[in-house]
C-alpha cells in the first residue's frame, strides 16, 4: 500500500503540473500597458511555486517508497545534518525568494497604484449597482452633473440620479451601459457604488478593484488593443451577482468620437 501511494503521489504531481506546463488554461492576452509586469510576476512565481510543488511531492513519494514497511532489523537512519540544515535551507531559499518577489511585486503593484494618472487622462465615471454597471461621460461641457441618489429612477434610465431639471451640466452627460474608450489613451475611472460592494474586473486589462459604498475610488489604465472585453463583478453583491457584467469596448479614436456624437445626438 505504501508503494502504491508513492506511485499515486508521483502521478498526481505530474498530472497536476501538466496543464500548467502545457499552458492549457492560459491567461487571456494582456491588453494593458502595465499588465506585462503582473504577468512576469505571475510566471516567475509559477516557476518557483511549481518547482517546489513538484519537488516536494516527488521527494515525499520517494521517501514513502523507500522507507515503508522495511524488513525487520533494517537500521533507522537520520537525515544528514538534521534540523539545522532544514531550517537554514528554508530561511535562505524562501527568504531570498520572498525578497526577490517582494521587490518585483512592488514594481508591478506600484505601476498600478503609485503612478498618478497623466494630466490629460480621460475621465469616465463608473457606477456599480445591483446588478449592472453604468458609465458616464461628461459630455460637451466637460463637466459631470452632481449625483443625487434620491433622483435615481432606473425605469426612466436615470441610473446615476442626475438632476437635469436644475443642473444644466447634467443635461449633456452621456450615460452608457458599455465602457467605450479610445485605444492607447489613458483612462481614469472614477468608481462609485450605488448600493453595496461590487468590483471591476477585466481579465485582459489585468485590473481588479472593488467598488466601496461611501468611498469613491479612482483607478487608471490604458487599453492597447481594439476589441470588446468583458467587465465582470468579483465581489459578492447579491442574487444577481453571477449576471453582473458589462463590456469594455476599445475603439479607434475616430470610432470613439463617432460613438460620442451618436450618444450626444440621442440625448
Amino acid at each position, binding site marked *: 500500500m505504501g508503494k502504491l*501511494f508513492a506511485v*499515486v*503521489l508521483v502521478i*498526481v504531481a505530474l498530472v*497536476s503540473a501538466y496543464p500548467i506546463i502545457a499552458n*492549457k*488554461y*492560459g491567461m487571456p492576452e494582456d491588453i494593458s500597458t502595465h499588465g506585462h509586469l*503582473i504577468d512576469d*510576476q*505571475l510566471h516567475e*512565481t*509559477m516557476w*518557483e*511555486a511549481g518547482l*517546489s*510543488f513538484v519537488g*516536494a*511531492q516527488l521527494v*515525499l513519494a520517494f521517501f*514513502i517508497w523507500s522507507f515503508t*514497511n522495511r524488513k525487520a532489523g533494517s537500521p533507522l*537512519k*537520520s*537525515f544528514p545534518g538534521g*534540523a539545522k*540544515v532544514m*531550517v537554514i535551507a*528554508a*530561511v535562505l*531559499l524562501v*527568504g531570498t525568494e*520572498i525578497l526577490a*518577489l*517582494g521587490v518585483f*511585486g512592488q514594481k508591478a*503593484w506600484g505601476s498600478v497604484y503609485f503612478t498618478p494618472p497623466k494630466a490629460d487622462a480621460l475621465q469616465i465615471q463608473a457606477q456599480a*449597482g445591483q446588478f449592472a454597471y453604468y458609465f458616464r461621460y461628461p459630455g460637451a461641457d466637460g463637466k459631470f452633473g452632481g449625483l443625487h441618489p434620491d433622483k*435615481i429612477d*432606473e425605469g426612466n434610465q436615470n441610473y446615476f440620479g442626475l438632476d437635469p431639471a436644475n443642473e444644466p451640466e447634467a443635461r449633456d452627460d452621456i450615460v452608457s451601459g458599455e465602457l467605450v474608450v479610445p485605444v492607447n489613451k489613458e483612462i481614469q475611472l472614477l468608481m462609485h457604488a*450605488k448600493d*453595496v*460592494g461590487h*468590483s471591476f*474586473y477585466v*481579465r485582459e486589462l489585468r485590473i*481588479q*478593484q472593488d467598488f*466601496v*459604498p*461611501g*468611498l469613491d475610488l479612482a483607478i487608471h489604465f490604458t487599453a492597447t488593443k481594439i476589441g470588446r472585453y*468583458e467587465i465582470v*463583478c468579483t*465581489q*459578492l453583491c*447579491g*442574487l444577481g*451577482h*453571477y449576471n453582473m457584467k458589462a463590456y469594455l469596448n476599445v475603439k479607434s479614436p475616430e470610432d470613439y468620437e463617432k460613438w460620442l456624437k451618436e450618444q450626444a445626438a440621442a440625448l
Partner: protein
Amino acid sequence: MQETSAQQAHVHAPPEGFIRKYVFSLDHKVIGKQYFALALVAVFVGMGLSWLMRIHLVWPNSRIPGLELLSKVGAPGGVMTPEYYLSLLTMHGTLMVFFVLTNAPFAALGNYFLPIQIGAEDMAFPRFNMMSFWTTFVAFVVLILAFFIPDGPPIAGWTSYAPLSAVGKDAGPGMQWGESLWGLSIAIFCIGSLLGSLNFIATTLDLRAKGMTLMRMPISTWAWFITSCISLLAFAVLLPACILLVLDRHAGTSFFIPAGLIISDRAQPHAGGSPLLWQHLFWFFGHPEVYIAILPAMGIVSHILINSMRKPLLSAKVIIYSMMSIGFLSYMVWGHHMFVSGMNPMSSLAFSFPTLTITIPATVMTLIWLGSLYGANIQINSASLFSLGFISMFVSGGVSGFFLAQPSIDIYLHGTYFVVGHFHLVMGVAALFGVFSGTYFWFPKMTGRMMNDSWGKLHFLITFIGAYCIFMPFHYLGLVGNVRRYSSFVNDFMGPDLMALHKFITISALVTGAAQFIFLFNLIHSRFKGAPASDNPWNATTLEWSMPSPPPWNNFGDRHPIVYHDPYQYGVRGLKGDFVMQDSPEQAITSGD
C-alpha cells in the same frame, strides 16, 4: 464561578444517569465526543450543500429531484434560483469553517486528548467546558433554523460583507431574518469558543502532571495550546463585530452602512458607516481562523507521523516554534484578503510582507516532516496514510498561497476559483486529513475497538485522489479568470473546455463525497463490531496510551501519572520494544534522542 466548577471537577463522583453521563456531562471525553458528533453532522450537511451547488453549476436550470422539498421558493419546480445558490454557498461556508474546521480538529479531539496527554483528570473548568459545547450546539441550531424560515438562509457568503449583510430585506431574499440568524449564530459560537479556549489554556498551564514540563508535552498538545491562544484573541474580536452588525440590522445604527445607498429603489436610512471597518474586523478574526483550523492538524499529524515512523522528528522543538511563529504572524496578515478592497495601497505592501514571511515557518515544518521520513520505518495504516496525505495537501495548498500573498498577482487572481482551490486544499482538505488521521489513530482509545484498516485505506485512496481532482482544476480555472461565487456562468469566456473541466470537478466531488460514507460506516460499524483494541495498539509512548481503552470516567483512576521523558522515545531499546512510555521510569538505551 469557575472556581466552584473546578471544585466540582476534582471531587466529582462517577456520573450517574443518562443525562449526566451523555447529555450534560462534565467529562471532557464525553464533551469531546459531542463536539465530534456535531462536526460530523455539520460536515455531511455541508457536503450535501456543495453537491447541490456543483450539480447546479454544471447543469444550470436543470430540475434537481427533491430540491423543491428543501425550499419551494428557493427551487421552484426543482430549478435552483440564483439566490438559493448563494444561500447554499453561505451555509456551506459557515458550517464548514465554524462547525467543522473549528470544532473537529480543535474542540473535539483537543477536548478528548489534551487533558489526557498532559496527565490531567479533566479540564480546569468542566462546567465551562459543558457550557461551551452546548453554546456551540445552540449556535448550530440557530444557523440551521435559517433553512426553515420563509425568508430562507442568507445570501451574503460566510464573510457577510457589509453593507450587503447590514441593510436588511432590500438586499434580497434571505437578508431579512436569515442574515440575522447568521449573525446571532456566529455571536453565540464566539462565546462558546472563548469559553473553550480559556479552558484549554488554563488546563495546559496549570493541570499538567508531575514531570510534564512544557517541553515534554506532545506536539499535538502544543498545537491545541497555541490554537486556543489564537482563538481566544480571534473570537474576542469577531464577537463585537457581530454585535455591531446586528445593531446595524435591527437598531438602525450605522457602523458599517454609509449614506445615500439606494437598494431595490429604496433609500437606506443610514449615514456615515464604513464598509471597510467590517472587513477589517472580520479578517482580523478570519485569517487567524485559517490557522485555528490547520494548526491542530499539524500537531496531530506530527504526533501520528512520529509514531508510525518509529523515530522522533528531526526536531520537535523546531516544529513547536514554527507553529508559535505562525500563530504570531497570523495576526499581522489579515489585510491580504483586502488587497483590492480599496484599502490604502501602501498597507497592501505592508500586509504582503508578513504574509510571505509565513512561508518560512511553513517551509521549515514541511522540510522537517520530509527529512524525518528519511531513514524511517514507516508503518502504513489508515492513520499514517492520512498524515502523509496531509503533508502533500499542505504543500499543494501552500504553494498556491504564494501567489495570493503578492498584491500585484492578487489583482488578477483575487475573487477567482484560484482562491477557492487554495483555501479548500490548505484549510479544508489538509485540516480534515488531520482529523481523519486522528480519528483512525485514536478511535481505539476512544472506543476500545479498532477501525477497519482496509476500509480506511480505501477511504484514503479515493479521498486523496478525489481531493486533487476537485481542487487542482480550480487553480486552472482561476488562472483563466473564472470568477467564484457565480450561481451560473453567463460569461463569454466560459468556453466548452472550461465547462468540461467544471463537469469533471462536479463528478469528482460526487465520487469523493460518496467515499466519505465509507468512513461514516466504518466509524459506526467499528464502534460496535470492531476488533477489540489493546490499551496501546500502536506501541505509542504518550500518556493517552498508558490508560485503559476506553479510559475510565476519571482518566487515570486513582493513579497520578508521573512523566519521566520527552514524549517521543521511539527507535530505542525499551522493555516493551522499540519505544519507552512517557510515564515509565525505565531509562531508554538510546543512540541519542
